[in-house]
């Protein structure tokens, strides 16, 4: 009545029909049920003027504001169902869309995001993020991979080998994500794997954040000597770059996510190759 269920195998995602938002992740085989939400936001890039002369640029992440991106519902939420997979298609705003896929035989959700061109006509560079939010009590702790190898424990606002003075509460807790990121509490763990290198963190207990795209208007004066403002040109002019990528989300009971992170991580890194040719109907190859 108020809930739309997506997925025909063990994994189901529940959406509220009132708000058109993801509300729950349910695995009927492992009996995992978690309240979960997903959102988008951006950090405004520091412009390197006024009191703080260090601008955000290719090297330096120095946000000076955090802003949620509200769904403008220009195109309504669309659900596509069939025997092999279900899709949820969302146009978040004119320059962010995503498709969430649940395959019948898989126990993770695939999220394909398309972001860009990031508007900068307000004179503000933007670094676009997505957040996956649960009620998990993660005690300031999360784990990120080390160039695809071991997952290393990260504790917010803390370093194991020196006393950290926190000057940048966001940037100081960001890590490179090449394979994935996960967090856990005393009963479950939420894992996210990526198909490309991104930045990521857990700035709030129970929440994982990924930085998916960025477009900045100032050089950080740390060596590049150029603004991170990539454009793509068409016959009638140039515009900011549009990117498309995927991330994969799974929630397990505590201690049961490692096998998925390793096997599916390898499958994301080494996708199958497709090759095509033609043949006549009777001429079987």
């Amino acid at each position, binding site marked *: 009545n108020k809930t*739309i269920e997506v997925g025909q195998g063990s994994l189901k995602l529940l959406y509220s029909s*009132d708000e058109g938002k993801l509300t729950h992740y349910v695995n009927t085989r492992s009996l995992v049920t978690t309240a979960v939400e997903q959102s988008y936001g951006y950090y405004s890039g520091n412009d390197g003027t006024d009191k703080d002369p260090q601008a955000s640029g290719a090297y330096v992440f120095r946000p000076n504001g955090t802003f949620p991106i509200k769904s403008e519902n220009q195109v*309504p939420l*669309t*659900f596509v169902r069939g025997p*092999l997979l279900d899709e949820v298609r969302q146009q978040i705003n004119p320059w962010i869309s995503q498709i969430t896929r649940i395959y019948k035989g898989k126990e993770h959700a695939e999220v394909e995001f398309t972001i860009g061109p990031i508007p900068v006509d307000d004179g503000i560079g933007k670094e676009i993020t997505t957040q996956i939010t649960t009620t998990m009590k993660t005690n300031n702790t999360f784990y990120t991979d080390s160039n695809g190898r071991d997952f290393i424990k990260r504790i917010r606002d803390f370093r194991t080998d020196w006393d950290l003075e926190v000057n940048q509460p966001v940037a100081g807790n960001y890590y490179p994500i090449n394979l994935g990121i996960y967090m856990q509490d005393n009963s479950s763990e939420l894992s996210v794997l990526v198909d490309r290198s991104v930045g990521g963190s857990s700035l709030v207990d129970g929440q994982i954040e990924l930085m998916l795209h960025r477009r900045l208007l100032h050089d950080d004066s740390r060596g590049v000597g150029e603004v991170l403002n990539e454009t793509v040109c068409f*016959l009638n002019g140039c515009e900011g770059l549009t990117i498309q990528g995927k991330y994969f989300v799974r929630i397990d009971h505590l201690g049961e996510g490692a096998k998925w992170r390793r096997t599916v991580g390898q499958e994301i890194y080494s996708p199958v190759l*497709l*090759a095509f040719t*033609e043949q006549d109907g009777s001429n079987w190859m």
Partner: protein
Amino acid sequence: GPNTNKLADALAIAQHHDAVSGTERQHVASDYALRLSIGYMEAERLVASSLAFLAESGSSIRQENTVTNFQQCPLLNISYCPPSEAILSDKKSLVVVVYNPLGWKREEVIRIPVSSEKVVVQDSSGREIESQLLPISNTTFNMRNKYVKAYLGKFPRETPRYWLAFSASIPPLGFSTFMVSGARQTGPSSTISLVHTLEEVT
């Protein structure tokens, strides 16, 4: 013959610390992209000739000097794939080879753009396998046309209407072959997805 030397060179150059972290200048990024593209195209020819050798070595109807022409679809991410978009008939089939580079068996759902809503998918033994058609969204379609027009200098010839999805089981370090063809009017065909749109969201 084709080899992977140019791809090796492009990958070697892209190990520079600025390439890894994305802190290179734009004209350098463009050069990396160009070199990777040249390397990919050369490697694509090598893969095509290898697959042709594998496919024809098992064929009972192999003829002298026959070389099967395999194509890939590097722009599949924006739903552009000329071989699969061509209108299919029950006389002519599209052969899809799915190669698994990992050392374990995989179960994957393959998605390719097609123009027809009457298609049937068979495995290499001729057995029909379950498939699903998903309408291509306007967002995807518009992006595809914009980028492909820039790439080709004109709008693409075909207009795919659906993603065709089918399940593939692929052996370790091996490949599986599938045939996609136009279904007869009365015969079996892919299941068209149900689409439900939430019109009012608060």
